[in-house]
């Protein structure tokens, strides 16, 4: 037997038998701190799993322990004490507050701050919390972790489709995304960042913390710190792998599933039978159901096929996600190398995302007064993106429900079916290719190459005064290649269609700031002063051709295509120049005051408003440090915070302040001639949206830190909204960008952490976060006129902006029911018949897409070597506008649809319903309008994560040269409990309206989310 194998045997043997025999004794005593006895203190015999806790009077007793054992006394917020027994039987211990924990530092913009001196609202997620959920996109780890930070996961697409909203929507036309700052480098998204090397994420929620980012801070700021080299010295290697299986998470409510062939044919038959009810036909000329097509029907007229399109286009997937980090360091320098490869496959066939990621980090102290460092990241992403969400008939998620089940995937001759192939029958189906053919014969590939990095130098002029100068860049290249085969109706038929889109962008920033820190007696003073230059440009081009002789060349040789659309290219840039400062003064660890200011200049704004100033002030009062509080034992820490500040939102397109001429081409005489027209009126006064925010909050630790509570109330008012202000069409312009209007958000962020049970054998902690937000449009346009921002679909904008109402309020009719037989006369006066939909006369607000309450309830357990997490997330108070109701239920016979068409539709015997009488869309017309029958309660509770981990005892694995070895098994998106009215896959989506600010919870069909089972392995060497 080789040594390696012996070690292995020992390793596993050790797990199962662990027995020790030595001289034993019993120890007891009392644990106190400056204020008296301490209950709930952890006492553990070092190197064993034996331990106990102090009782309410601070007393403890430990039996049968070794005479020379060492006891470890620990408690959060206190220094851990180790005491060797040396035969003593009574050991009293005096615990001391941990100075280090008091001085725990938090990353804030351009520096760090002591946690106890934060005056604003800053949420933090530690690396332990981040690594709980094995995910591909770092935003998924942020979900539910910080009150007031909402991460909407709007799709099951590989890599996720997340939208982050911090403390409600404070803008109408500008971006709602927060600013991301990764190791000091500003970015507009972090979608392809490797989540495993993130050390911490901090979110600056209020104006006092975010104002240091001025005109880019209005939506909040997410600060991300990633790991670097090893500070202390040595070598650390970490390997993690996750293997996951994704399955369809939610089968829809059975009535809202597509009809099978038999049901589909029933509706076809009834629709034809009903045709004379809706329109007069000369005797004998009534439509008849003819089914003479032996590829589709047998001689009795029964369908030959019954295809379940959901089953045909979905799959159980297996994905992998591997991470390797190698970190080393010595006194002078440290190095880190981080590698990640992910292959994430979607549950819709052919959809996938592969990502390779390398990060290199190097830091060196060159002299006592100089240190330097660099970070460099390279990411390559390959995506296959079939059109799952879309409003057209070719969208996969739509075809699942609407493509008729009577068609096969392929005909006996091997060709794909499409819905026009109904020859010989009287069936009329909306023309569409079958969804499997779209998946297999339409390629939509996206390649991204992102590189970014920064280099910095710290110069210490004096021990108190440091200059940091940093240069960073983000370079992105995007390539989209598309080909639709000649076979595919609507997309490539008859002669193939190819498209290539390229764009590349470069962002760079240079930031220099001085930090001065000074402590004097009871006072501590920090000041920071800096300047920043940023510039961005993007160039894109696209080519679109059609007319191929065969499907061979695709996008690889577009020159062979016979026709092309005019090629296009476009250039865009912006730049910013800013100056900023922060002063922080703290007295006696009780009173802190922070003042910040930033002067931002941006090219995107009018010549009269190039620069703006964003100030803020915040104060905090550590009441528990006051003498009069020392008697109140149940309170361990109580701190009040209050802040006010101004931030801006400049995230809008470039050149909006300039009068420009649009140039293009127009067909005249068989050729393209150049054209031009005024594109925009000048607005030299154009400026940023201004966001004024008040934050009042407190932190409370009580009952020996068993409960930690953080609560913040905020009110933010965004004024000078960047609005596409509608102007009369007589000007030749539809709208101009102007600063008009106000939106307010007010709400409450609440976070409660409790340590429910804490023994040496079992620990249970709970964390509850919640945000309540109320959003209101305060003013609009010149005369507070309503604005209809879209999404535009079936008769106009489906949301409205109206003063006094929340942004994104759904706009439509009320469905009063279905006209009954006893209402025939009244119906006739509106041109309707009994059996048709009865709606209100006017459109009105029929729902709101953003929730009142959102939050999470996370329980964490530790027992022995096991750990477990149960992470529940909830949302309450939002509605969902289910646009698919219009085509799947109200529009009948033209496509397949929900079973409700057959089982719940109006008949003279079933008049109490909201589903209209079966009516052949083509023969008898239809009546589609947005109404509140589309609306469902969007509240839900989601089993976001359930995981179980086992960490091997270090003693055992040490011998294998492994420091830490953990296995885990988790289930993501384990379940969703939602209202019965909801008819789709997942209540959280914005479907194909991704680009609209107002589309949350408005969707046609959406990419179904997977339930994912993940097996994870992590080892540190």
């Amino acid at each position, binding site marked *: 037997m080789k040594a390696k194998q012996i070690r292995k045997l020992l390793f596993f043997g050790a797990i199962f038998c662990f027995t020790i025999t030595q001289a034993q004794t019993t120890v007891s005593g009392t644990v106190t701190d400056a204020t008296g006895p301490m209950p709930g203190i952890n006492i553990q015999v070092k190197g064993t799993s034996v331990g106990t806790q102090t009782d309410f009077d601070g007393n403890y007793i430990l039996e049968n322990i070794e005479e020379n054992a060492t006891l470890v006394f620990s408690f959060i917020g206190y220094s851990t004490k180790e005491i060797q027994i040396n035969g003593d039987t009574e050991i009293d211990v005096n615990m001391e507050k941990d100075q280090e924990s008091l001085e725990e530092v938090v990353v804030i913009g351009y520096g760090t701050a002591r946690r106890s001196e934060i005056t604003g609202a800053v949420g933090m997620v530690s690396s332990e919390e981040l690594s709980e959920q094995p995910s591909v996109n770092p935003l998924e780890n942020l979900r539910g972790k910080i009150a007031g930070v909402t991460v909407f996961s709007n799709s099951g697409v590989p890599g996720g489709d997340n939208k982050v909203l911090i403390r409600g929507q404070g803008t109408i036309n500008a971006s709602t995304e927060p600013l991301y700052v990764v190791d000091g480098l500003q970015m507009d998204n972090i979608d392809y960042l490797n989540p495993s090397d993130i050390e911490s994420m901090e979110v600056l929620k209020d104006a006092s913390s975010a104002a240091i980012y001025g005109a880019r801070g209005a939506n909040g700021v997410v600060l991300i710190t990633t790991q670097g080299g090893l500070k202390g010295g040595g070598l650390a290697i970490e390997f993690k792998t996750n293997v996951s299986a994704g399955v369809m998470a939610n089968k829809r409510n059975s009535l809202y599933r597509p009809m099978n062939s038999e049901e589909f044919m029933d509706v076809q038959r009834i629709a034809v039978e009903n045709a004379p009810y809706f329109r007069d036909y000369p005797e004998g000329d009534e439509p008849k159901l003819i089914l003479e097509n032996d590829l589709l029907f047998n001689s009795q007229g029964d369908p030959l096929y019954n295809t379940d399109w959901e089953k045909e286009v979905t799959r159980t997937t297996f994905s992998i996600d591997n991470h390797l980090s190698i970190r080393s360091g010595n006194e002078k320098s440290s190095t880190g190398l981080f590698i990640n490869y992910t292959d994430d496959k979607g549950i819709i066939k052919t959809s996938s995302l592969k990502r390779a990621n390398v990060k290199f980090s190097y830091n060196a102290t060159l002299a006592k007064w100089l240190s330097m460092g660099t970070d460099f990241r390279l990411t390559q992403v390959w995506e296959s993106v079939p059109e799952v969400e879309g409003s057209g*008939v070719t969208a996969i998620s739509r075809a699942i429900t609407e493509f008729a089940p009577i068609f096969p995937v392929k005909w006996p001759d091997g060709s794909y079916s499409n819905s*026009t192939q109904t020859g010989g029958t009287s069936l009329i189906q909306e023309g569409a290719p079958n969804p499997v053919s779209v998946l297999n014969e339409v390629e939509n590939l996206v390649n991204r190459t992102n590189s970014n990095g920064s280099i910095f130098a710290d110069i210490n002029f004096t021990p108190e005064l440091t*200059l940091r100068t940093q240069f960073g860049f983000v370079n992105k290249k995007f390539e989209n290649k598309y080909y639709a085969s000649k076979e595919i109706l609507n997309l490539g038929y008859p002669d193939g269609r190819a498209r290539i889109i390229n764009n590349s962008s470069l962002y760079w920033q240079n930031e220099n700031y001085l930090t001065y820190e000074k402590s004097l007696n009871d006072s501590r003073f920090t000041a920071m002063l800096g300047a920043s230059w940023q510039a961005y440009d993007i160039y894109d081009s696209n080519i679109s051709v059609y007319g191929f002789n065969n499907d061979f060349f695709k996008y690889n040789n577009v020159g062979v295509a016979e026709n092309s659309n005019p090629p296009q290219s476009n250039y865009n840039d912006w730049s910013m120049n800013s100056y900023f400062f922060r002063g922080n003064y703290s007295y006696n660890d009780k009173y802190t005051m922070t003042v910040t200011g930033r002067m931002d200049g941006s090219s995107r704004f009018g010549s009269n408003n190039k620069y703006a100033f964003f100030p803020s002030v915040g104060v905090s009062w550590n009441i528990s440090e006051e003498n009069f509080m020392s008697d109140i034992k149940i309170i361990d820490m109580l701190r009040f915070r209050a802040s006010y500040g101004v931030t801006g939102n400049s995230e809008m397109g470039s050149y909006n302040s300039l009068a420009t001429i649009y140039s293009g081409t*127009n067909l005249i005489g068989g050729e393209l001639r150049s054209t*031009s027209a005024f594109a925009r009126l000048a607005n030299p006064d154009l400026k940023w949206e201004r966001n004024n925010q008040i934050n009042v909050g407190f932190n409370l630790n009580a009952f020996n830190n068993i409960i930690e509570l953080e609560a913040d109330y905020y009110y933010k008012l965004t004024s000078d909204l960047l609005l596409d202000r509608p102007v*009369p069409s007589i000007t*030749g312009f539809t709208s101009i960008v102007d600063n008009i209007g106000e939106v307010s958000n007010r709400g409450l962020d609440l976070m409660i952490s409790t340590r429910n049970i804490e023994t040496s054998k079992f620990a249970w902690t709970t964390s509850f976060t919640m945000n309540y937000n109320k959003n209101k449009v305060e003013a609009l346009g010149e005369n507070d006129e309503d604005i209809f921002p879209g999404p535009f679909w079936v008769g106009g904008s489906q949301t409205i902006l109206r003063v006094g109402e929340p942004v994104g309020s759904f706009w439509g009719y009320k469905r009063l029911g279905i006209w009954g037989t006893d209402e025939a006369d009244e119906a006739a006066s*509106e041109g309707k018949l009994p059996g048709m939909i009865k709606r209100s006369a006017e459109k009105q607000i029929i729902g709101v897409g953003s929730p009142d309450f959102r939050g999470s309830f996370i329980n964490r357990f530790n027992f022995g070597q096991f750990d477990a997490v149960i992470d529940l997330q909830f949302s309450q108070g939002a509605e969902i506008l289910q646009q698919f109701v219009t085509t799947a239920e109200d529009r009948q016979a033209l496509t397949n649809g929900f079973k409700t068409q057959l089982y719940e539709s109006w008949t003279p015997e079933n008049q109490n319903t909201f589903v209209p009488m079966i009516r052949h869309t083509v023969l008898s017309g239809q009546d589609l309008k947005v109404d509140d029958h589309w609306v469902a309660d969007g509240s839900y509770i989601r089993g976001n994560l359930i995981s179980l981990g086992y960490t091997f005892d270090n003693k055992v694995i040490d011998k294998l040269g492994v420091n830490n070895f953990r296995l885990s098994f988790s289930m993501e998106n384990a379940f969703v409990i939602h209202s019965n009215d909801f008819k789709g896959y997942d209540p959280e989506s914005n479907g194909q309206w991704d680009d609209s600010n107002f589309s949350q919870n408005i969707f046609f069909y959406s990419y179904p989310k997977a339930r994912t089972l993940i097996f994870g392995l992590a080892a540190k060497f």
Partner: protein
Amino acid sequence: MKKIAKILLASVFVLTFCSCEDFLEEEPKSQISVDQFFKDQGDVESVVNSLYGSGVLNRYRTGDFQINEMLGGYLSGFFENERTERPGPFEANNLTLNSDNLDAYLFAYWRDAYDAISRANTAIKYIPEVEGISASEGNRLLAEAKFFRAFNYFHLVRDFGDVPLITEPYESLDNLYVARSPSEDIYSLIIDDLNWALTNGDLPKITFYSNGHRITEGVVAATLANVQLQKAGFPLLGGAESYAKAADAARLVINSGNYSLTSHGETLENSAFNKNRTSDSSNETVFAIEINQQYRQSNLYALTVPKYAAVPGVIPGDVWIVYRPLEEYLRIYDPAKDLRIQNHQLWYSSIDRNGLTYDFNGNWAPFVWYDEEALFETGKTERDIKISTYSEILLIAAEAIAQSTGVTSEAVEYLADVRSRAYWNTDRSQIESELAGLSKEQFIEEVWKERLRELPFLFKTWSDIQRTRMYPVTSAENPGEVEFVNVIGHINPYGATYQEKHLLLPIATRVKDRNPEITGNGY
């Protein structure tokens, strides 16, 4: 002190790292800023170029499962759209249209028209300022711009009545809220613009096709004839004076010698109507929207086949009849005499394909837009969309002459030209003698009937009702016979009764919201 100096020094270093003056200047590269523009002929010419196929011309080519200009046909109650779910056709058929339910549609109409007017105004303002442009080139461009301004205003005034009169381009946000001007003023501008173009425009006196699809004298004259004819009737009642001017404008087209009615070939497949259908460049076309597979597409060919006919091999995924004539309309033709109502002339009720006949269940559809190659082979049509034809000009001339000077032989000849081509088995002299014997009123009604039969695809059905306020009532027993009754109070085939307000379209809610000076049209 040394320390403070150090701090100050460092601060200065940080803040002045780069203080370039122009760092925040914007210089767009894929758009042109206005001050760089209107320097030479190419600049103003490109503004004029943008007017082709745009503005209200868009309405003849695009729409959501219909063609927008078809709204008049739906309002007349004679045509319906099989795709009923889109707003427009249903509301128009049933006269339940209003500012809200047709907001998207009405707003787009208004916006597109003023968009084109604004560009025309820009060209009209800047052409005279460009240096180095020859007088004749400048006048030609000005004439084109003025033509398009008039053409767009004509549609607005016809369908909305009084509208804001804007003759200068907007270059700032001053004077945003302009009230509606009286229709008379709008007509004055239209007529002035068109007359200017005819008098000073140096426009070629050749056909639209020979002129590379650019505006010619004939296009302007044909539009002027239309404008004067419309102005002569309701609501302005320009009367004999306007009719006389309409006749003059029509004669300018007729006497130019550039245009003629297409004549029949040997077979019915090769009739004049089929020749016009399959060929763009016939001398019968006066003005059209140019269509091209690549750069300006039309889906009219796909909107004229019923889905339920299930014709195999149709390339567009969806085909529909969006302009289906009701029986009440088809009865304006006498099937015994009139070639136009024979299958596969102007209309059709079945498709013959690969030796099989696919029936339309007794329905008829416009054959004029049928394009076999586009339907079954390419998925794209090359057929232009006709806006004005010679047969229309002949009919305008016949009516205008009769109205202003009586039933002259000239008027009879023009009407007979059109009718005798359609009555392919009837002797022309018989037609002429019948017409010559009619009273003025009878003759004019004959012209109206002929317009209904000949021009359904120029969408004249509703604009004729607007100007004459007479509704054609056909007869089930005697097809071809038409009685004209007062439209107000008349009940259309959908059971809806016309009121005076229906003769103008509602003003879109969004138009009213954006401009408090704009009042509605009584809906």
